[in-house]
């Protein structure tokens, strides 16, 4: 992922978002970060609808998705994204409080790339997010509507 890649964080809890953002930055990720407060906002952005910010065709995206959100929950967002022939190329990282094995299995079946449980222990949390950062530095993020780009390196 190169520096132009945008990290989308769907997170209804402002505190969580702040913690995630800080951890990512501390892990050295300095990409642009966009926050959506619920599933609807996220979908509007991705499917280029509504009045808010909209996805741009030539940009790379990575989605961090919480599950328990008002209106449309993360699971539904994941399903819609993965059912769309274009959007399904976006890597999705589930970052949520739910550690129910069945939920985890469902997310994997729907096609999420990584599933991370938000640990309460701060160190663990930071570690988990750091790993996401690391992940971002090694995964090949395809450009939507275009040819895949070469492996991006963060830093």
């Amino acid at each position, binding site marked *: 992922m190169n520096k132009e890649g945008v990290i989308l964080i769907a997170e209804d*809890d402002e*505190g*969580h978002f702040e*913690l995630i953002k*800080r951890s990512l930055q501390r892990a050295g990720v300095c990409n642009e970060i966009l926050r959506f407060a619920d599933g609807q906002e996220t979908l509007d952005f991705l499917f280029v609808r509504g009045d808010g910010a909209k996805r741009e065709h030539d940009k790379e995206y990575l989605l961090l998705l919480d599950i*328990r959100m008002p209106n449309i929950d993360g699971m539904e967002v994941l399903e819609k994204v993965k059912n769309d022939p274009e959007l399904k190329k976006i890597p999705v990282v589930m970052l949520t*409080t*739910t*550690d*129910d094995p069945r939920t985890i299995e469902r997310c994997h079946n729907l096609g999420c790339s990584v599933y991370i449980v*938000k*640990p*309460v*222990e*701060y*160190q663990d*949390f*930071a570690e988990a997010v750091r790993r996401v950062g690391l992940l971002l530095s090694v995964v090949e993020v395809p450009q939507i509507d275009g040819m895949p780009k070469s492996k991006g390196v963060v830093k």
Partner: protein
Amino acid sequence: MHPDPVAAFDLITLLASAVGLIVMLRGWKRALEPKAKLVFLGLLVFTLCYGVCLFVEWSWDTRALDRIEDVIGALLPMWWAFVIYAFLAGIVEQELRERETRFQELYDEAPIGYHELDTEGRITRVNRTELDMLGYTAEEMLGRPVWEFSAEKEKSRDTVTDKLAGDIPPGRIFERTLRRKDGSTLGVLVGIRLLRDESGHIRGIRSTIQDITKRKQAEESLAQERNLLRTLIDNMPDNIYVKDTKSRFIVANMAVARLMGATTPNELLGKTDFEFYPQELAAKYYADDQNVIKMGQLLVGQEEPTVDPEGNRKWYSTTKAPLRDSRGNVTGIIGISRDITARKRAEDDREHLMETLALKNEELESVLYVTSHDLRAPLVNIQGFGNELSRSCDLIHSALKDKVKSADMNGEVRTVLNKDVPEALGFILSSATRMDSLLSGLLRLSRLGQAAVHIEPLDMNAMLTDVTKSMEYQVKEAGVTVDIELLPPSVGDASQINQVFSNILDNALKYLDESQPGMIRIYAKIEDGQSIYCVEDNGVGIAGEHQSKIFEIFHRLEPDRKSGEGLGLTIVRHILDRHNGKVWVESEPGKGSKFFVSLPSV
């Protein structure tokens, strides 16, 4: 003595007289008429005289008595005539005697009683059958008025009087009750006929007595039985009915009548269900009846709906059996049906209750599940920002340390920065951690309620070996000997039952008595279709007052000393509840504990 033709003649006469005497003697024995007896005495005297004469003549060899002999001799033909008469009379008499005996035998041994009365109604003759019937001797009955032996004296006397007066036509038979000698009564049929002498005058009455007690008893007991049956049928709360092959009622009880809206069971007789029930129901009952009749087979406990006269919907459990005649042909059906409306209603209620309960339970589980999740979200913030704060504090601390001399810093601020804030943050963070572990415990428990149970046969020896193997490290660390005896199999969910024994063993290892080497023994027995397993340890034991609490959620015996969420045994109980199993403990402080687990053995 020389041979003398006269003497020889005399001798023959004497012999003939003797023969006549013997013949007469036999006649005597048969009690001849008095006239014949006189003749006999005369003959006796004649024979004796004759004999004496002969004796005298022979003894003294004289003929002096010849004249007397002549006189006697002149009488000889007449004597012979007597002898012949006596002989013939004897034969006639014997024949009469025999006939009389035969008659008497018949009379006495007749299967019915006989008695004869004189014109005063007194008994002149009675046979043995009647004597046996009444228990009297002949002497006790003869000469007494016949009505003295009746239980209805007046009636009996009137009948006798009327009969003697000729007011009762011949051939009539009366039912009477007689009284026995022992006081008991006897039902009889009495037939009476008049006795007349040769000239046609009424001489008395002869009666035949027929014992009808048995017949009366049979009739009575039949009537009683019928009454009993009828009372039983009528008072049965169940419907009882008999129908013919065309499904017409032959018998019905009150319950049937009430259900069908009739006032009495008789109203139903000869009618069919079609005249009482809605067409659809009647057709169904008719089809069932006909099926039983055609197949000749029982219909047992069929639960079927019906409606009572008020239109209320009811449920009945009906049994129908084919009714057969003595040759085995089906002549109809007999039906019994019981009102099970209340039971049905209770079943429905129960089902409804179970549904509600299941729903409530589901609701509870989901509340628990959602709550534990949503409660974790704020905790993430508390922890996260707590750490952010302590990080900020560290930054401030190091920044101040470098740039400001310690002396310049207010002592109070220093205390706050060095001690108060880190301490406060420490409490906040550890509480959040604790809260998180409680929540994840709750979550695990609620997940257990949602997990499906796959019941299968379990090889418990293999399972317990697995469980101990997975805990090998702790077992070795604690220096504990684990002894598993031969265990009977049981049925349950493999992973959940594994969890049960893991938790119990984990507990045993956690609460060892450090003063002695740890010993854990696992054994079992089968009781009432349940396999009962026991995990026995020689650890610290549990005081009586704690024993019931150890299965409660979050209950921990030594929260400060031992790690854990206080959920292990709660989970054990929860799992066993879902397996129709049980868990209980027997323990004494200082002597160790026995944890029992019962599971269905098949």
